């Protein structure tokens, strides 16, 4: 496996105040890590120690981080792997805005004020036709413009990944047409389509059933020795990975949310076929440097 190339990505969960090991731990880190200045410093440290890119949910916090990272003329911007939409934030907004209708009204206002006329036109068509696929395209156009505005046009969006909450719901609802439309739309924009899922084996099954070729799609899914968040369990996910026939999977939760140490995590990950990279969140400078240095040494 030594000749494999790996993409090592910094994840953004800690910057949103998230720890899947324990929310108590996330609160214990304090607010500093959610400040863009601190977070951008951690991303830079990870990049200096072997990370290739940044995977992030598109939010005001991460866009501010991107602005800071791209602000320095000397530094090259990392490869970008945005996840859209930031579903947890939208669930919270739906709670506050009075449900899905309230959320829709709020997004419509944001879209109109963005002056992104292409996205506005597409959004208008989506509303008139009440077509979820067209509305999704309008939303993607809006988010891509927000990312490019934050980076000043610098950096490369390597892939846009459909957030797990939407992707897994679409899987559950058998929305093959939504996946096809999403994939085709991003290919038209010359951006690699991506899908984040916590139901990897289910996704591979469905794609086969729908005759959808997953080869051109980047898939982010949990893989770790414990089988944590590998649904329905570790073995079916490993089998699905073997069957994939393409090296297009980014492993998430490789540390089982901080439960495993990086060395034992790497030991498991490097034996799996068809993985093209990993994404790891870091909350301390020491983690940012040591973790990526170790993964680079172990995997590459």
């Amino acid at each position, binding site marked *: 496996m030594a000749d494999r190339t790996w993409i090592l990505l910094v994840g953004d969960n800690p910057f949103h105040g*998230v720890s899947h090991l*324990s*929310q108590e731990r996330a609160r214990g880190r304090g607010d500093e890590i959610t400040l863009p200045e601190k977070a951008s410093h951690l991303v830079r440290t990870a990049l200096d120690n072997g990370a290739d890119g940044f995977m992030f949910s598109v939010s005001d916090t991460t866009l501010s981080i991107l602005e800071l990272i791209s602000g320095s003329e000397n530094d090259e911007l990392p490869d970008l792997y945005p996840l859209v939409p930031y579903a947890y934030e939208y669930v919270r907004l739906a709670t506050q805005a009075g*449900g899905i209708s309230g959320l829709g009204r709020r997004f419509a206002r944001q879209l109109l004020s963005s002056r992104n006329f292409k996205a506005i036109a597409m959004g208008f068509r989506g509303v008139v036709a009440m077509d*979820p696929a067209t509305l999704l395209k309008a939303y993607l156009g809006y988010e891509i413009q927000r990312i490019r505005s934050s980076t000043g046009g610098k950096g490369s969006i390597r892939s846009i990944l459909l957030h797990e909450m939407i992707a897994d*719901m679409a899987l559950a609802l058998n929305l093959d047409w939504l996946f096809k439309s999403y994939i085709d739309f991003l290919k038209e924009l010359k951006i690699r389509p991506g899908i984040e899922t916590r139901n990897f084996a289910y996704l591979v099954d469905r794609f086969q059933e729908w005759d959808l070729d997953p080869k051109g799609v980047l898939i982010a899914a949990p893989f770790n020795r414990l089988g944590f968040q590998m*649904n329905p369990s570790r073995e079916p996910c490993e089998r699905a990975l073997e069957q994939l026939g393409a090296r297009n999977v980014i492993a998430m939760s490789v540390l089982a949310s901080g439960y495993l140490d990086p060395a034992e995590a790497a030991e498991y990950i490097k034996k799996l076929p068809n993985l093209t990279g990993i994404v790891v969140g870091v909350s301390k400078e020491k983690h940012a440097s040591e973790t990526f240095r170790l993964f680079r040494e172990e995997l590459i």
Partner: protein
Amino acid sequence: MGRDLRVAVIGLGKMGLLHASILNSMPNIEVSALCEKSFLIRRIFRKIFKEARLVGDVEKLSSSEIDAVYVTTPIPSHYFITKDVYLRGLTNNVFVEKTLGANLPQSKELCEIARNCGGINMVGYMKRFSVTFKKTKALLDQSVLGHLKSFETYAYSSDFASENTLSRSASRGGVLCDLGSHIVDLALWFFGDLDVESAVMESTNGSGSEDTADFKVRSLDGLEGHFEVSWCKRGYRLPEFGLTIRGSNGTVRADGDKVELDLEDEKTRWFKQDLDDKVRFLLGDPEYCREDEYFTNSISTNIRPEPSFDSATKVDHVIDQVRRRATADG
């Protein structure tokens, strides 16, 4: 059951969509009908649920053949819709998102109707399906803490922590029903019946909405409990629930992520990573998948599930006591 179980979901807000999606992913389940009063949402979902019948009110479900109904509308409408489902004879297998009613008399009446109609009924207190709270229940059942002395429990979120969101809070039925009901249900599951001894409730924005609640309870055998509930707490991006239980042998602390057992000569900690938190299909939290599998299996096997309407009415009884006590305590 030889054929698929046909399920209708009433209310296509976030909970309705979540349950409809999980149910749709399950083998032998057919989401055959959906009911949503918003015309716009119906128009969008017509393209998503192509094989389900989509109607605007419960009456129109009467002509559908349905084996089970999920009521996932906002809390204030649970009573009216659930009663309608039973009285129209749509089905006698009914799942209602928590809380069962908006107040105790409503829940009692729904219990009575359900008892008369028979069938399987359940309320969505999904925290019972969390691996950490299940572990806590198992520890209590094994009496590892010895004689129980006291407990403290909390339910916090930041949903309405900023001032410009508070005006919306009242429409959610109040923090006691929305968040507090989960920990009241866990406490009743763990400790049995509880009497409220004192209570303070506050409306942070002054509009009369229930935004925080602090109350003390006592069980029949003298166990004392303290509840703190707020949806205005900063630092709680997602709702969090937890409790500390003290007994003659030691202490258990549990939340959605972990369980810590602290005995005189032994300390043990289980994270959810240790407790096999996997599910057949994950959407939202694993608890939802387990809950839906359990409810539909209960129908197939005709075994009474918990938390039933009767158990959920006990939650509403405690909430009713808190409201009365808070008013009396002034």
